[in-house]
């Protein structure tokens, strides 16, 4: 693994880009359209034929055309403009501006949000038909799309935070969309609170960086990072880590990933667009936007980012192995893929990370929509109620297969983007992380094989006769399958398409150009190892799970008779792990027993078992006890403090007034005599 074939591409000041003309100058309309749709749906949605869905789709269709035009312009000549309007001043010197950036990076996000969003919206018309509060669903969904565009179009940190909070609000509203069930409400609250904790980091980081540089502008901050501004240098690491902390919440990086699996309580289109394709990538986008800061100034911040990214991509990926709910499985998978993106960008792979973001948006949205189609057919999220759906829903099946192969990194778009990440990480000198990522690829293929087998193969186990979804749902699936298959070809290392170039070149067009490390040719060795790991994962998963059984639960187990009781114990690994942590009265002995028997067993099952056990352990101990324990501890502390402090809330108005007078008096005395 020589680094000879990688170049530190210093495109810095060589980029020739057009200004995009009218399309870029008025791109701000894109940001406003979905927000307008939000208000319009609230006003007249109930009276529309499709409950306001047509308004939301109309707004996003215009955006999709617009973003596609910008995309083509960027492919052919490059687009680089920034339009801002001064809204007000903050203190002395800092300016509050709103506006929009149109460069390769933001065009990519405009394109993803608009095009994937449009397809998901069309799908949602079919999916939500006859459901409760559909106008409100489309209104909140439009609010999300608008806020997301405000976020990705932001020329400064302030506008980004505005969009950031907007998508957080929409996420909260849509996770708790079925608020009749208290569990959904709690999931929404959890997502909101975890994100709020992270947002503190984002806001503090933004303030620290802005005060050092004297501007909230991405352009100014990144220019200062490139030119080695001393004032920025003093706070760069702290600011960068705080921003990363903010990104951890939105992009579900371990240990702040706990909200995302619960967020699947929302309707499936929401999971597809927000909690897989776009919103959760906001953190990665922020990292990419601030890339020069991390690359040039805050190198010390990159190590914790890589470590957390690697833990996320492998450790959380394991959890997908034990998930019974198909959406939960996909959610763990999303967290794992976000871990890949974070790792890549922390290792300096700007292009690799954004390319994976790009392909992941298509295939993960596709997988979620397929899952939604299945759920629509069998009226259950649980894979134990599925099986054999291949015969009933062929379109869903084949698109699911395309998405699964892409996610597993076998051949389709995911192969190219994951390979790009692997080679970038490896050649940046993070060998160990690269091997972790390869192991993660194995796990990914393994659980996707499991999900495919349990859902679509064998015989049907549910109650109702399943049926293929209507065209309004399957057509978006097929349309999403096209980029899922072919998007990888846009960035074959070292290959440039005639007239349009390749993805690396499009993304290099940025307001503050900064060369990154990307592959200049295909690294066959790493690509081969990655592919091998994925194929092995599929093979192992298929060998274990493809046999049909009377009950889905049995298929989910290992079928060798000698092994079966042991598996039952492994199946309750959560309880064992909890017992070990809680008390030491025996479960460790069972644990040793389990391990002994495990060694005797067949290799295929052994590998699968170990991985599965590890998944259960990570889920049971680290996730449930460790991470959730910390979260609960914090809340218990707040609860205790509250029960002491609430005694002050006597309800006696005059005590409040006395406190008020005393406070005013003390303040005046302090200001007059002390300061």
């Amino acid at each position, binding site marked *: 693994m020589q680094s000879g074939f990688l170049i530190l591409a210093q495109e810095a000041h060589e980029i020739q880009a057009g200004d995009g003309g009218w399309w870029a100058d008025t791109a701000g309309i894109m940001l406003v359209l979905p927000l307008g749709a939000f208000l319009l749906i609230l006003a007249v949605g109930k009276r529309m034929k499709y409950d306001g869905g047509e308004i939301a789709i109309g707004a996003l269709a215009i955006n999709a055309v617009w973003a596609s035009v910008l995309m083509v312009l960027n492919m052919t000549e490059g687009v680089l403009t920034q339009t801002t309007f001064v809204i007000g001043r903050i203190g002395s010197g800092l300016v509050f501006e709103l506006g929009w950036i149109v460069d390769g990076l933001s065009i990519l996000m405009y394109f993803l949000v608009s095009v994937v969003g449009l397809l998901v919206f069309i799908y949602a018309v079919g999916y939500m038909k006859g459901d409760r509060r559909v106008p409100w669903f489309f209104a909140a969904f439009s609010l999300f799309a608008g806020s997301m565009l405000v976020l990705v179009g932001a020329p400064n940190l302030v506008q980004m935070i505005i969009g950031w909070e907007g998508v957080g609000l929409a996420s909260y509203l849509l996770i708790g969309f079925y608020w009749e069930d208290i569990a959904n409400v709690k999931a929404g609250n959890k997502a909101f609170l975890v994100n709020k904790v992270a947002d503190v980091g984002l806001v503090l980081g933004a303030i620290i960086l802005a005060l050092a540089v004297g501007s909230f502008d991405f352009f100014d901050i990144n220019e200062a990072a490139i030119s080695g501004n001393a004032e920025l240098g003093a706070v760069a690491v702290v600011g960068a880590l705080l921003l990363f902390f903010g990104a951890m919440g939105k992009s579900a990086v371990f240990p702040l990933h706990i909200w995302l699996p619960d967020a699947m309580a929302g309707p499936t289109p929401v999971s597809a667009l927000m909690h897989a394709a776009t919103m959760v990538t906001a953190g990665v986008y922020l990292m990419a936007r601030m890339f020069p800061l991390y690359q040039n100034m805050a190198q010390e911040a990159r190590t914790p980012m890589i470590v957390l990214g690697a833990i996320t991509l492998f450790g959380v990926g394991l959890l997908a192995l034990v998930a019974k709910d198909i959406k939960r499985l996909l959610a763990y998978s999303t967290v794992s893929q976000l871990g890949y993106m974070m790792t890549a960008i922390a290792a300096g792979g700007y292009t690799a990370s954004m390319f994976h973001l790009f392909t992941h948006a298509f295939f993960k949205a596709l997988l979620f929509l397929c899952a939604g189609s299945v759920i629509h057919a069998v009226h259950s999220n649980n894979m134990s109620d599925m099986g054999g759906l291949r015969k009933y829903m062929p379109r869903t099946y084949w698109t699911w297969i395309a998405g699964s192969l892409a996610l597993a990194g076998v051949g389709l778009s995911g192969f190219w983007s994951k390979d790009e990440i692997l080679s970038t990480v490896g050649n940046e000198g993070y060998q160990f992380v690269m091997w972790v990522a390869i192991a993660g690829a194995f796990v990914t293929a393994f659980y996707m094989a499991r999900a495919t087998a349990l859902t679509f193969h064998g015989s049907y186990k549910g109650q109702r006769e399943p049926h293929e979804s209507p065209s309004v749902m399957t057509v978006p699936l097929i349309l999403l399958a096209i980029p899922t298959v072919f998007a990888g070809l846009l960035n074959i290392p070292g290959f440039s398409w005639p007239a349009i170039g390749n993805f690396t070149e499009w993304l290099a067009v940025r307001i503050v150009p900064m060369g990154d490390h990307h592959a200049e040719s295909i690294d066959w060795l790493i690509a081969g190892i990655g592919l091998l790991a994925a194929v092995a994962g599929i093979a192992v998963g298929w060998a274990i799970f493809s046999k049909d059984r009377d009950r889905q639960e049995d298929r989910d187990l290992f079928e060798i008779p000698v092994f079966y009781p042991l598996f039952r114990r492994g199946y309750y690994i959560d309880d064992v792990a909890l017992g070990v942590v809680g008390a030491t009265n025996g479960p460790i002995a069972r644990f040793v027993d389990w391990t002994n028997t495990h060694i005797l067993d067949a290799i295929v099952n052994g590998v699968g078992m170990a991985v599965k056990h590890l998944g259960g352990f990570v889920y049971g101990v680290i996730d449930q006890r460790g991470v959730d324990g910390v979260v609960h501890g914090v809340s218990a502390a707040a609860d205790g403090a509250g029960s002491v402090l609430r005694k002050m809330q006597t309800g006696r108005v*005059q005590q409040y007034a*006395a406190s008020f*007078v*005393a406070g005013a*008096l003390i303040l*005046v*005395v302090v200001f*007059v005599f002390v300061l």
Partner: protein
Amino acid sequence: MTFSAWISEPINWVFLLVGLIVLVSGFRVVTAKNVVHAALLLVAALAGTAGLFLMLAAEFVAWVLVLVYIGAVIVLFLFGIMITRAPTGQDEGLDSEKKIVPALLSVGVFLLMAWASIDAFSTTLVGGTGDPISTELIGESLLGRFVIPFEVVSFVLLAALIGSITLARKDLTPIEEEEGQRV
């Protein structure tokens, strides 16, 4: 300015008298055991204040104070007292028992403000600086420079009018309405 020089001005005798009335009645407003007495003592305090306004070349405001406050607001208060059937005789339960903290706080506020005044304006004199401010000037100011606040305040008054009617109006139950119609 020495005290003897100050006391030799006849107008300061008037101030001492009026100020004493204001202070004593103001103090009694917050300590009186009788609710109606408190309201009537506020009349005395406000009347004294109007006198002070006259000394300070503010004739118009002085009469506004008398008309609006003594003529209207106090009557409103007396109505309020009567409607809420507050005890009209002596009542020990009017004040809360904990008086020390409020007393300390108010003394603190007084000392602070007094110190600030003495610190800033110990030599500033009042009077002899011109004629009383004419009502004409106030009117021009109200309908000139301050016309928008003036309109806003009139709107506030309207809102308060509607608000208090809405709040105080008793919604009759259906049975009461029927009875009202029969009567």
